[in-house]
């Protein structure tokens, strides 16, 4: 007689079961996103060096602050998040998982964890690539990794809560984040990009606030903690939501 699997068993089973998805189209898109920036940067800097034009430390910083942090990591999260628990809802395979005796709250994280590890791996490769151009690797990697962690968790939660979760995610990452950067005060606290900059240092050609305020400063460890805990909270909220919501065959909810 089979027994109820423990949360760890369920996590491992899902992680392993969905592993092949990472090395299919969507997985390679996630991998390619940071690599495009880094490879582009490497090619350009080699060309410049061959021309004899000296490239300062500005190039890797520009790649990080213009390409990776504000554009590529959010897009990675946007690409990866719908392939998590949202995918099971959309292709109506969630009932198969709910029909199994394992714990339900572990599902959102178990479906997202693979995408986090895979994306994290490629962010690491990207940071090493930028390291060749003179970027300080460890803090920048930590910043990207934590941003990806928090954004992926946030988008997964949105995907679980709203049918148009991805749209709300786009609005949050590409409208709210850049807009609030120009606004004064503590509101900046509620953007991902602020914490990335607190971890990795401010962009050299960084945006001047429209209302020209002194930038808000947040400590390194405070920001790291904020991103980490925010991500954890999002996963937990997603798990809790799935745990308390009865979900039937049509994928819709029924009221208890």
């Amino acid at each position, binding site marked *: 007689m089979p027994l109820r699997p423990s949360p760890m068993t369920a996590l491992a089973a899902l992680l392993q079961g969905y592993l092949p998805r990472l090395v299919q189209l969507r997985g390679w898109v996630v991998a390619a996103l940071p690599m495009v920036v880094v490879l582009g*940067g490497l090619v350009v800097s080699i060309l410049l060096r061959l021309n004899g034009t000296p490239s300062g430390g500005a190039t890797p910083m520009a790649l990080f602050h213009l390409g990776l942090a504000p554009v590529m990591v959010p897009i990675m999260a946007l690409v990866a998040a719908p392939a998590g628990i949202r995918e099971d809802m959309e292709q109506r395979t969630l009932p198969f998982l709910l029909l199994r005796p394992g714990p339900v709250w572990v599902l959102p994280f178990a479906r997202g964890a693979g995408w986090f590890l895979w994306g994290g791996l490629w962010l690491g490769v990207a940071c090493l690539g930028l390291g060749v151009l003179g970027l300080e690797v460890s803090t920048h990697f930590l910043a990207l990794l934590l941003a990806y962690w928090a954004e992926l968790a946030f988008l997964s939660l949105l995907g679980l809560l709203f049918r148009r979760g991805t749209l709300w995610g786009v609005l949050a990452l590409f409208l709210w984040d850049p807009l609030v950067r120009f606004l004064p005060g503590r509101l900046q606290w509620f953007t991902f990009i602020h914490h990335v900059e607190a971890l990795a240092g401010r962009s050299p050609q960084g945006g001047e606030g429209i209302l020209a305020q002194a930038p808000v400063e947040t400590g390194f460890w405070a920001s790291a903690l904020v991103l980490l805990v925010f991500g954890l909270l999002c996963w937990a909220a997603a798990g809790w939501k799935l745990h308390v919501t009865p979900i039937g065959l049509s994928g819709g909810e029924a009221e208890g």
Partner: protein
Amino acid sequence: MPIHAPTLPPRPLQGEGLAPALVLARFEVRRILRQRLGRFFGFAFALVLLVDLALVYFKPMAGVAGQLLPQGAAFQAGLLGKVLLFLLWLQVAQVGGGLVARDTLYRIRPLMYAHPVRHLDYLLGKGLVAVGLPFLILLPFILLPWGVSLLMAGAQGPVWPTAPLHLIPAALVVSFLMGILTLGASSLASTPGGGFAWALGGVLGCGVLGTLLSGLMGNPGWYAVSPMALAQAWPRILCGASGELGWIATGLGTLVHLSFWLGVAVLRTRPREALA
């Protein structure tokens, strides 16, 4: 007294119908007009048009003793300005993104090819909407200021009497760029939302790439990678205003984008594959 049992007579033979491409286009237009988002965009465009008109007249009037004075090339090109084009990109991505993707989602395309619709008809019909929509929206932005300027100040107005000759071709090229790009993007997606995302992703992604490349290479010619930059460049070039992008880069960039996205659309809508 006979009983006329209800039955289905053969189809009527009288009357020649429209070409399939036109039927398709009209069906799409009706659908677009019914959308709520369409009304929102209509309002936004009206607002931009008003601001434009105000700028056209009050700016030069305030400057030189309240007189309407002829303006330079940059001013003419500005009639198809940045804000307008940005709004238009959004609108075209939203509408155009759904053109092919909605058929994919509802699986209508196989049925079209089962009716007498050819591949060319399908592309023409969809293309007509995708290209025609931005063109029709751009047209009042050219003709209205021009007409009012002519009425109020004749040849001495701020808008050149010959401005439409420069701007209408520009609007046409821009419409083709926008329309064909979204058509291709739409054929990549399987839902209208996905089409919107592909279109915006294509435009913004190429935009970021263009900015990065031109910044890193120190050559603004690389902006030609960005469709947004291309759309902004065409009115300037055709009006003879100076800009970051030259003739060659603009033409080449436009040609590459057009052929790439058209190729995508052609490949992804073939009848053989559609009929599962």
